[in-house]
């Protein structure tokens, strides 16, 4: 590793992903949270979150993504949204929408919430309940979406897609239109955290992926003037790796429920990195100078074929966490890249998993009894 002190990083982050809590009424098997969830007692206080927002705005953050777990389980969410508005941060609520009353939503809108992103696990009650592990979730989500629109807030439907719901993708598009969503995010599962543990249960076939590409293309042509569709493809079948989080420590800064600051959800899976906490260090120092954030910036850390690759500026060699998870080496070329010597093996793994009968879900649950919902 490079022992020479590096220049502080001067480019500001664009988005702050505030994971307010790991508590969640749903138990989706592809949750991006770590397997080891943070219990309620270890969550940051309101006071610390408000300070984090102040520091983030001063650092140049423009958008605040309020996430979790389920962020509405924090009773101080209105105060957090109000502070974001006062700082002119664009606030985005990422929610499952199952336990949020109209009155609560109205209070959040009044506090200055800018946008709501609602997850929908499937397009019918049975599938939605089964994937989210929550009975009666679908009707609640539909009611929540209507309440969002009634308040005039912009709405995105977030559809995480995988082998169990991909055959109903067209219906997801129809649902987005029916609920008057402004945006539909069709996101193939990315295999980290719980999703990695459930990979064989979720991996789509190549044919399912191809079909989803066609459906999104047709939907964009047909409804493009009313509905903006964002599409995230799965990288096990890719030719080039994804520019994960726009590059390590480049655009996104994530604060976990316990205060640890990360470049992405999965970063703690890389051994040997010490992620500082907002409780101990200023956010600006963590972003600009902390060794963990500096670790994979620039190109010096790269191996071949990345180091001399003309695409290194585009994708930074892909995802460091995926290289770690699949190859045990965080400096290796992401095996999602066709130029990786391990690409064929990873792809064969995906094909084999997709071709086998899916194992049962390992649902995402917070095990500590102290954190069970009241």
């Amino acid at each position, binding site marked *: 590793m490079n022992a020479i002190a590096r220049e502080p990083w001067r480019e*500001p982050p664009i988005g702050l992903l505030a994971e307010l809590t790991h508590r969640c009424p749903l138990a989706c098997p592809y949750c991006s949270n770590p397997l080891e969830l943070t219990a309620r007692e270890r969550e940051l206080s309101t006071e610390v979150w408000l300070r984090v927002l102040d520091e983030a705005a001063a650092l140049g953050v423009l958008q605040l993504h309020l996430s979790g777990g389920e962020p509405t389980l924090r009773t101080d969410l209105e105060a957090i949204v109000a502070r974001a508005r006062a700082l002119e941060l*664009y606030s985005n609520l990422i929610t499952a929408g199952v336990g949020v009353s109209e009155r609560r939503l109205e209070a959040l809108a009044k506090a200055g919430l800018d946008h709501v992103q609602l997850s929908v696990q499937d397009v019918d009650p049975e599938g939605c309940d089964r994937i989210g592990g929550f009975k009666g979730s679908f009707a609640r989500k539909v009611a929540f979406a209507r309440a969002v629109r009634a308040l005039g807030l912009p709405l995105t439907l977030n559809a995480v897609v995988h082998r169990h719901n991909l055959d109903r993708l067209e219906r997801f598009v129809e649902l987005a239109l029916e609920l008057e969503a402004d*945006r539909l995010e069709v996101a193939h599962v990315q295999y980290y955290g719980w999703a990695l543990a459930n990979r064989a249960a979720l991996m789509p076939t190549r044919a399912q992926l191809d079909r989803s590409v066609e459906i999104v293309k047709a939907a964009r042509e047909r409804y493009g003037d009313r509905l903006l569709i964002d599409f995230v493809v799965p990288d096990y079948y890719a030719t080039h790796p994804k520019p994960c989080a726009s590059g390590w420590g480049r655009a996104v800064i994530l604060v976990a429920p316990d205060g640890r600051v990360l470049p992405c959800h999965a970063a703690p899976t890389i051994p040997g990195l010490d992620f500082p906490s907002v409780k101990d260090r200023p956010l600006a120092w963590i972003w600009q100078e902390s060794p963990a954030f500096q670790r994979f910036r620039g190109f010096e850390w790269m191996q071949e074929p990345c180091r001399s690759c003309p695409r290194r500026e585009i994708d930074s060699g892909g995802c460091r966490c995926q290289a770690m998870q699949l190859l045990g080496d965080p400096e290796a070329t992401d095996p999602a890249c066709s130029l990786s010597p391990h690409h064929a093996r990873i792809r064969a793994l995906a094909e084999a998993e997709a071709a086998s009968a899916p194992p049962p879900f390992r649902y995402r649950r917070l095990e500590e009894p102290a954190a069970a919902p009241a």
Partner: protein
Amino acid sequence: MSLAPEDRLVLARGVRVRFDPVRNCHVLLAPERVLFPCPTSVEILGRLAEPRPFAELVAGLAAEFDAPEEEIRADLEGLLADLVAQHVVLVERRAP
């Protein structure tokens, strides 16, 4: 994209434009997106908080910059086509 004089233009829901003192430029904030609009776009977007007919937008800018309407209209059509394609500006058309 061609715009009729009576076509009404408006900022899409959830779009905000503000000055960012850290980057020393205007930024456009939208759901899951941040754009850095050029000064002309900032001028246009600032006039579209409420729906406004294309003709009125052209006339206003022509008066402000003391330029012929024809010239302004030609410039605007290209810029607005981009903003519409990016779902930043919506066009409200009267039903034919």
